[in-house]
């Protein structure tokens, strides 16, 4: 029973780790090669956060 509990908790941890890796890979600095849009989104976000805004609109 305790082995099953530990095993199922480890599966939960693995799910968390894999999700973080997959999503970060899609959003991270290396993701620009896989999609132009995601890179554009990040740039817009940085501009928003710096308080300078964007005059593209």
């Amino acid at each position, binding site marked *: *029973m305790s082995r*099953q*509990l530990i*095993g*199922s*908790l480890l*599966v*939960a941890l693995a*799910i*968390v780790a*894999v*999700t*973080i890796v*997959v*999503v*970060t890979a*899609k*959003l991270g600095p290396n993701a620009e090669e896989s999609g132009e849009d*995601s890179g554009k*989104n*990040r740039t817009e*976000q*940085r501009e928003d*956060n*710096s308080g300078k805004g964007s005059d593209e609109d």
Partner: protein
Amino acid sequence: MEDLLDTLTRGNPLAVKTVLASVMFALAIYQLILATVGYGKLRPRFLESGPAFLTHRASGDVIVVLLLVVGAMCLATGEDEDDAAFHAVTGWVLLGVVTLKVIVVRWWHGAGRLLPLLGSAVFLLLGLTWLGSAGEYLS
């Protein structure tokens, strides 16, 4: 508050929210499987009902904490997307249903038969809220 959020996320609150929301959604799918095992609808040889429910509870606690963190981040950063209203409505309803589920699990045991329904509602609302924000951001 926004400055604190920017500092904590190193200027990427949207990306951090997306990662945390995706973790929540992935855990919610696992929760669904664990509940199915817990209620005996699925009987794998390697997992019994007891451990499945214990992990379901632990994983659910993690989801609640993440939900509160992401919800606070959403309120702090604000949403200026076209479908922000849909995201806000599903998010608030999700918080309400999760609160009710926690109350039933911890104190209101008489309403225990509602748990499968509440759990399904939480999963559905989590999926809709994720699709309306993180899912779109990732696509």
